[in-house]
């Protein structure tokens, strides 16, 4: 199995990868992007492919690497994996509520606003003390949120503009501060630059402890107050009317949001942390219609993307974890977007396509019926030429349409193959469509008083969607009328069963019901 993959497409990617490596000796942005794509591909498709190169570094194959990474054997990697898993759960759970409450931009603003707090927390005792940074960052984040609400409440500036300003303003201040720290001579400043794009490998024991506390808090709050968060998110006014302090829950959620942004900084970085909140939850939103499932899925996606991101960054040591995690999350979203069983693009496209095909088949059936009707149902077969003329198409198109009918068991070939005859099933459906069309036209002219020459277009569309019960209701309301506004006979259920010859007062019956 592995050998098979190794020798086919994977080898090609490997070669491609080496070529790029040779072309760009210094690692530029483009090169990194290319490498990322290739790495993602290789990891997905051909696990054995990277063996040679990674082998130079540590172990022999990606599978061994993965085994080592995911089995918690290596201490430094253990923290990285544990951290990203905690992060996935935390961000996934909160993200679910953030997305349904339409607070996604708030998450983004908050995450950028924490950066000055990080810098000040670092300056507190000139070291990367998780607690000092946590406190500084939380305060800065909450200040950012307060600034937004102060701007929106006291001026006519709306929330989007306020969020945009606060986000960039705080971030700029934070970036200047961290760059200054980077140039300081004193102190252990290692890792301050990781706050921009994250480095899961740099997580230490204290970081994990802090992450565990915050994640435990989030899980506890969400499971204890699930009902309260649900009702305040769906209908805050109702929640307040039944006595739930909606504002308190909102503020609580914002506080948890600030906490989780701050603990995510180390691993994901300021710039991309909001994606870890939004993307897994948005993917889950595409896949389910129930809140508790959304939260579960979102947390699962969070864990998966976190772990994959950390692993990829471990493979390509030196790459920041944040972008890799976000890429993984985006990939999950892309899958949900394309292949989601209910709202996925693919399934929707497929449904639309089959609906289009059905409508076209039904129109062909109708054309066959009309062709038969033109000669007062003398004979049952219709030539492709007749069909083409009725549909105003080329003969080739008529042939395709006829084949579609035959494929679906609605018609059979007749004679030399240039003629078709409807099967009982096809006959019934053809009658139904004509009946829907003409009854609807009559209904529009009689009940809605629309002129007879205005109703055809509408009936062309509605004929394909009317259900049997509605049609019968219409028929009853029209007192079982026999002819449509243009003077053509409307086939009744009886005609459909017996065959249509009776419509023209002849004994010879055409269609279903004829002695077969």
């Amino acid at each position: 199995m592995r050998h098979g993959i190794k020798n086919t497409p994977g080898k090609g990617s490997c070669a491609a990868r080496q070529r790029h490596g040779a072309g760009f000796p210094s690692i530029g942005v483009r090169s990194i992007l290319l490498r990322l794509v290739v790495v993602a591909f290789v990891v997905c498709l051909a696990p054995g492919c990277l063996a040679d190169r990674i082998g130079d570094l540590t172990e022999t194959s990606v599978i061994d690497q993965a085994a080592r990474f995911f089995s918690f054997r290596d201490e430094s990697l253990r923290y990285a994996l544990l951290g990203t898993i905690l992060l996935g759960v935390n961000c996934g759970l909160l993200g679910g509520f953030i997305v349904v409450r339409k607070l996604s931009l708030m998450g983004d603003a908050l995450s950028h606003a924490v950066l000055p707090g990080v810098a000040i927390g670092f300056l507190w005792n000139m070291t990367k003390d998780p607690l000092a940074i946590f406190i500084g960052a939380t305060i800065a984040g909450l200040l950012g949120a307060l600034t937004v609400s102060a701007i929106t409440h006291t001026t006519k500036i709306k929330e989007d503009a306020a969020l945009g300003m606060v986000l960039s303003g705080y971030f700029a201040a934070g970036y200047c501060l961290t760059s200054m720290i980077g140039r300081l001579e004193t102190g252990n400043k290692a890792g301050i630059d990781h706050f921009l794009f994250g480095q899961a490998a740099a997580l230490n024991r204290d970081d994990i402890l802090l992450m565990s506390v915050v994640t435990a808090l989030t899980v506890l709050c969400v499971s204890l107050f699930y009902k309260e968060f649900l009702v305040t998110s769906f209908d805050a006014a109702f929640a307040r009317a039944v006595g739930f302090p909606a504002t308190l829950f909102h503020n609580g959620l914002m506080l948890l949001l600030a906490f989780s942004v701050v603990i995510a900084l180390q691993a994901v970085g300021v710039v991309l942390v909001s994606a870890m909140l939004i993307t897994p939850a948005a993917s889950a939103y595409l896949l389910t219609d129930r809140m508790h499932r959304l939260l579960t899925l979102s947390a699962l996606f969070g864990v998966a993307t976190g772990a994959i991101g950390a692993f990829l960054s471990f493979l390509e040591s030196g790459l920041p974890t944040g972008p890799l995690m976000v890429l993984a999350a985006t990939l999950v979203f892309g899958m949900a977007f394309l292949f989601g069983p209910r709202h996925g693009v693919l399934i929707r496209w497929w449904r639309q396509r089959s609906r289009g095909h059905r409508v076209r088949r039904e129109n062909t059936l109708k054309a066959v019926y009309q062709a038969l009707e033109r000669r007062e149902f003398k004979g049952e077969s219709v030539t492709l030429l007749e069909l083409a003329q009725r549909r105003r198409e080329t003969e080739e198109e008529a042939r395709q349409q006829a084949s579609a009918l035959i494929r679906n068991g609605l018609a059979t070939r007749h004679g030399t193959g240039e003629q078709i005859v409807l099967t009982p099933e096809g006959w019934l459906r053809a009658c139904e469509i004509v009946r829907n069309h003409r009854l609807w036209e009559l209904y529009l002219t009689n009940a809605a008083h629309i002129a007879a020459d205005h109703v055809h277009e509408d009936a062309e569309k509605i004929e394909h969607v009317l259900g049997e019960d509605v049609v019968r209701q219409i028929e009853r309301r029209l007192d079982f009328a026999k002819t449509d506004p243009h003077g053509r006979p409307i086939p009744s259920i009886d005609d459909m069963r017996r065959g249509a010859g009776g419509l023209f007062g002849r004994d010879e019956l055409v269609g279903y019901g004829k002695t077969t």
Partner: protein
Amino acid sequence: MPMADNEALPDPPDTGPDNVIHPSQFDWVKSASPEEVPLEIHDMTVAYHKKPVLWGVDLAVPKGKLIGIVGPNGAGKSTLIKSIMGLQPLSSGWVKIFGKPYRENLKRVGYVPQRESVDWDFPVNVMDVVLMGRYGRLGLIKRPTRKDREIARECLDKVKMLPYASRQISNLSGGQQQRVFLARALAQESDVYFMDEPFVGVDAATEAAIVELMHELKEKGKTLLVVHHDLPTAKEYFDMLLLLNMRVVAFGNTAEVFNVELLQKTYGGRLTVLSEVAEAVKASQT
């Protein structure tokens, strides 16, 4: 604080020299037991950004009545309901539900908000929404029990929505959404109900079902206050009418209050509305 707010407010709107309503109209409350007065409002003023929306509202509602709240756009009909339920801060005045402040009696109040006030793409199904009606009784932290689910099912059945219990709410028609909101209010098992425009955007069958349900509730001694925008049906649906335009223009039995003079006063000089009023009155007299 409310006083300071009050002083900053502009003069009250001129609704004519002699408002029909007079506080003495509610003197009966003084001798009634609290159980007989589902809702009492005294001198309630509500303002948005210092702009008054409701001004000096006095009201006392007798038990077991079906009451329509009628008035032009911007008359403060929804605000009145929201202020009663504490969703809107009062600049002055007070509200009592069965003789107690709202907060102390909120389990006795059911609420049907406007249908557009929520996001119908929210990831919940019909049952989830109706169960929310039980949340007030459950209080914090406690989860709905089997009994709550049973009650929710009964309420869904009453609005003929039980077959839709597991539908996602975005797959419902406007009328069905309104029925779900009604079922949620029923699940609150309250004694006084506030409904904000329950007839907006619903089909005829739902409208009839809502009217039937309202009468059923009334028969059980519940009191209903319903914001309504359609004058011709207002006359038909409600026992009593509250004519509102920032102030209470009139409150009384429909037969007494539904007349050209008072409706003109409520709807001001707006011609289109006036003609509608004239039509409605003419229709009601023939």
